[in-house]
């Protein structure tokens, strides 16, 4: 009886090792970064985000449990002479074809009238988490793998307002190997 009890820790070690090994295989949390740049046409910006081309997405696309978090980061270079209000919308992926020239009524705003002063403004991922809105819709679109991303700026006086070094950062949990 005593020997059996003494063997228990060894059994526990084996069980723990199997448990951990099994968990390593079956699930995890992954961060995917998708780069983008947007070119402005009269204060209107449009980009189709396609996460399905990312290797990490491809590895886990069939096993996504849920989207933990979505954020963005980008740099705005504004040579406007005054503040500009900048908004971003997301909508279902519209597919190939001519780019839209206005924001559709089905789109939801995720950045609402962010004030951008003249000069260079860097929005970080962490900052974006504090002002992003309509997160459930955003997460739902992200989970589909593709979505439309619009932006509009108002208050422009005809100078340039360019968005560069854009990134969509997706944290997802997935099961499966």
């Amino acid at each position, binding site marked *: 009886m005593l020997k059996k009890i003494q063997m228990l*820790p060894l059994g526990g070690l084996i069980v723990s090792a199997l448990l951990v090994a099994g968990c390593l295989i079956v699930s995890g*949390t992954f961060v995917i970064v998708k780069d983008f740049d947007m070119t402005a046409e009269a204060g209107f910006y449009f980009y189709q985000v396609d996460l399905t081309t990312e290797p990490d997405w491809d590895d886990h696309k069939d096993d996504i449990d849920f989207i933990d978090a979505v954020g963005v980061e980008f740099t705005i270079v504004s040579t406007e002479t005054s503040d500009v209000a900048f908004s971003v919308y997301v909508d279902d992926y519209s597919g190939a074809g001519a780019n839209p020239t206005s924001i559709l009524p089905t789109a939801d705003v995720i950045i609402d009238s962010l004030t951008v002063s003249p000069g260079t403004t860097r929005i970080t991922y962490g900052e974006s988490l504090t002002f992003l809105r309509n997160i459930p819709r955003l997460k739902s679109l992200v989970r589909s793998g593709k979505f439309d991303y619009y932006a509009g700026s108002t208050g422009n006086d005809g100078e340039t307002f360019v968005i560069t070094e854009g990134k969509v950062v997706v944290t997802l949990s*997935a099961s499966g190997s």
Partner: protein
Amino acid sequence: MKTLLTAAIAAVLLVGTVSAQLPKFGAGAFGGVSIPVVQDDQTNGTVFGARGRVGLLPILQIEPYFASTQWGAPDPVDGVNLGIDGSTVTAFGLDATIGFPPAKLGLKPFLTGGIGSFKVKNDDTGYDESKLGFNAGLGLGIGVSPFLDIDVRGVAMIAPQESGSKKAINLMAGVTYNFGIK
């Protein structure tokens, strides 16, 4: 049948005799390192907490516990510094240990495992999930006096979420004071 009955009665008498010599209750604290498993958005952090100990049998103890874990901020991903803090895990529950009798001097290898409520939260991302989870592992207790046990243990923590789970390996050291020693 008669042999079995005799053995059962002997076992009960033995357990009763030994139990009478052992403390029924203990309390202590623990702390250590928490290593997230397959979580790109977390790095190693700390875990600390308090636990009680209730002796049911000489080899079987029940440990109610409270534990607080703070994982570390994530490393940059594809050149992006996420700039957020790691998540916290607040847990309370019941563990059982086998092979860790109190008031016995010397080395005492043991198994541990149990269930608890695990709340995983990140204020920066707004992530907040609370579910029933479990942990299992093993450890080594050292009886330094009849009153005092110290222990080190490695535990796999699994906190189920909406679906899937958050996991970590916790490596901890603790100290437990045994009450009722005469």
